[in-house]
């Protein structure tokens, strides 16, 4: 086992550098959980990033007072070269709820730390942004939903408070407020443009309008029931979320889904990517008023969604996963239908994509628009097609293989410009790759079981599920409670990382380009707000 040797080396390296400030707590499957001292958090995290090449992929605050007598902060790192995640856990005393902020060292931590402050009341000391993130201005001071003593069903009174947007001042500056209810069938969010004429100087967003308290709701719920919540965090990435959740549960249970189930998951995950990407390539055209692309995109997306319903009974691929496997088998008859539809959609889409990408007036709008810089993408840990379009070569399907991706050959396309055009190009390339993956998976699939029973789960165990959704890497953090319940569940979706990245790409463009840039990132609000 190379991995074990490598992990042993990592443990030695960390022990040598930090001595008693870091110790191995447990190992769950491939991931190691370290306990670290709170006062060494900054040094250790920086060492992980700068010297060992790990990226911060999620950060979770947890109220463990009833179990261990204190709060805890989890830092989840992943290294795409090493193919396993590392979890660092630091304890925070109840009477001194604060921890050193790492935002200035690792900018990707900025939203996580603000969320921990809002939801758990643990203060990141030294965080450059003191504004709220999750709670809006009318939320009362000193009320923290994710603390265990917060009654999830209570009615929270409204207080008056002011929105804290940065103000751009000067001659000719116009502030344009947009939303939360938008002119179209879109999710809600509030945007504040500061512009001179049509040129955007600054853009800020107030999100979390669709915050439904789903993580709080999952606390103390049974592991089986939380699955249905995980599927409904977001519809467009429904299957990715349920797969990540099932992965986390399976890791804790010490089981692995049977091989056939993993192949079925692969097929379904790629169908999800297909309908999203095809829909997106079409929908981005709407940002430039190019209705040919919109209509053909919608038509082809509908083909895949009808296929989803015919094969798995749900247009959004819900109800497939269950911890321990999948609920529906793929018989030969279904395989045939999938291959038929894919064949016709591929041919059709090639023609549509070729016309879209050779239309000069459209290319004029998308080229050099909304550039995401490589450095920004790296610092903010942007993920998915948006990051790959900016030259970041990362994809969990290859780097942290799950389902049956380790048995399938595929290419991860990358581009370098990071503009709207490259985000379209990435999707077009990935569509063909996805079709290839589905064909291989259907061919290589062997007969066998599709699910195994889930037994009693060990209590207070931590695991991480990571999946590459159509929008990028998603990270599910799960801690079990006694009797197969959920103690803490945290979902870090792809949109969570990409929203801050999107906001950096708009200044320098004109206001009418915002819908185009926004559509090219295609971020979910529901995934982020939870």
């Amino acid at each position, binding site marked *: 086992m190379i991995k074990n040797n490598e992990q042993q080396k990592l443990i030695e390296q960390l022990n040598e550098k930090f001595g008693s400030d870091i110790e191995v707590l447990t190992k769950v499957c491939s991931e190691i959980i370290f306990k670290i001292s709170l006062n060494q958090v900054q040094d250790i995290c920086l060492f992980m990033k700068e010297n060992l090449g790990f990226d911060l992929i999620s950060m979770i605050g947890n109220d463990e007072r009833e179990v261990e007598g204190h709060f805890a902060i989890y830092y989840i790192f992943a290294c795409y070269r090493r193919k396993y995640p590392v979890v660092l856990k630091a304890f925070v005393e109840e009477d001194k709820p604060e921890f050193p902020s790492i935002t200035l060292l690792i900018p990707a931590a900025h939203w996580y730390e603000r969320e921990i402050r809002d939801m758990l009341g643990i203060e990141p000391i030294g965080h450059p942004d003191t504004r709220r993130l999750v709670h*809006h201005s009318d939320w009362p001071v000193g009320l923290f*939903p994710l603390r265990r003593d*917060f*009654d*999830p*069903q*209570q*009615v*929270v009174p409204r207080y008056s408070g002011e929105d804290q947007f940065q103000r751009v001042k000067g001659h000719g500056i116009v502030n344009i407020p947009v939303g*939360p*209810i938008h*002119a*179209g*069938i*879109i*999710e*809600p969010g509030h945007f504040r443009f500061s512009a001179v004429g049509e040129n955007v100087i600054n853009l800020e967003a107030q999100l979390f*309008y*669709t*915050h*439904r*308290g*789903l993580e*709080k*709701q999952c606390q103390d719920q049974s592991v*089986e*029931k939380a699955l*249905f*919540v995980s599927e*409904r*965090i*977001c*519809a*467009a990435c*429904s299957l990715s979320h349920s797969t990540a959740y099932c992965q986390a549960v399976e890791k804790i249970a010490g089981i692995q889904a049977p091989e056939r189930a993993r192949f079925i998951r692969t097929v379904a995950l790629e169908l999800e990517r297909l309908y999203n990407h095809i829909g997106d390539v079409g929908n981005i055209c709407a940002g430039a008023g190019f209705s*040919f692309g919109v*209509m*053909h995109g*919608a*038509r082809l997306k*509908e083909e895949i969604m009808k296929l989803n*319903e*015919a*094969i798995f*009974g*749900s*247009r*959004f691929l*819900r*109800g497939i996963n*269950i911890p321990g496997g999948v*609920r*529906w088998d793929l018989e030969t008859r279904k395989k045939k239908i999938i291959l038929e539809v894919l064949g016709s959609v591929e041919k*059709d889409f090639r023609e*549509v994509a070729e*016309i879209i990408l050779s*239309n000069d007036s459209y290319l004029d709008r998308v080229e050099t628009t909304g550039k995401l810089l490589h450095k920004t993408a790296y610092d903010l840990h942007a993920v998915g097609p948006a990051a790959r379009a900016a030259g970041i070569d990362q994809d969990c399907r290859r780097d942290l293989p799950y389902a049956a991706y380790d048995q399938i050959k595929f290419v991860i396309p990358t581009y370098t410009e990071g503009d709207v055009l490259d985000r379209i190009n990435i999707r077009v390339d990935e569509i063909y790759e996805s079709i290839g993956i589905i064909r291989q998976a259907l061919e290589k699939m062997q007969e066998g079981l599709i699910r195994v029973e889930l037994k009693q789960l060990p209590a207070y165990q931590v695991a991480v599920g990571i999946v590459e959704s159509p929008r990028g890497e998603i990270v599910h953090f799960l801690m079990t409670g006694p009797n197969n319940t959920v103690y803490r569940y945290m979902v870090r979706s792809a949109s969570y990382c990409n929203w801050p990245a999107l906001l950096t790409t708009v200044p320098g463009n004109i206001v009418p380009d915002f819908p185009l840039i926004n559509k090219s990132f295609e971020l*979910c609000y*529901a995934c982020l*707000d939870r």
Partner: protein
Amino acid sequence: MLRIFRKGYKTGMSTDSYPYDKKPVSSNFRGKPVWDSDKCNLCGLCVECCPTGAIAIEKSKIPYVQVEKCIFCGYCEDQCANGAVTMGDEYELTLPEKTQSERFNKGQPGFGRSVHIRHLDAGSCNGCDWEMVALTGPVYDIQRLGFDFVASPRHADILMVTGPVTRNLEIAAIRTFKATPAPKLVVAVGTCACSGGICEKSYAHHSGVENILPVDVYIPGCPPRPQALIHGLLKAVEKL
């Protein structure tokens, strides 16, 4: 330009014939669950395992589902040891609370053949929203039935509300409702909007649109398929 025209010509018409010609759903489709009275031994496991508490049982009668709470996950079918529950193929599940004629005062004109809809996202998972987007696409094309989506509530006759109405959107939802001129209908779209669905009673939302706005028509589904939305809209304006 010529290529665009040629592609359109080659593609031909792709519009679905619903509601005039209803195609049968696939055998895997998960619609309203049905119970086989011969196989059901009244054990109550389905009632227990339902993630949204949608299944009810009265003593010594076979269970039934309250569709406004059902998320069509099929877990009852999965768990039933006797195979008594199956997910049926019924998807036209609109529950009209009040119809157009009941709701509008006497003498007020109802809607004619041109009905304008405003979508109001009140905290959905975006599933219902995507299905509404599909309605405007070439396949379902609801303009052929006299409906259209508009950008402002001031131009709307119908508000289609999705999501359980979160705390953070409550004020915006009420303002949107007030901005819509009477006569107007409110349609709750999706199980979250109808009853809260998977979103249990919480600090963060109001468990259904009816707790904030007067709802006229409920379209359950998680999410309702586009045909179910068309059915609901036609019901709302009494065209069915």
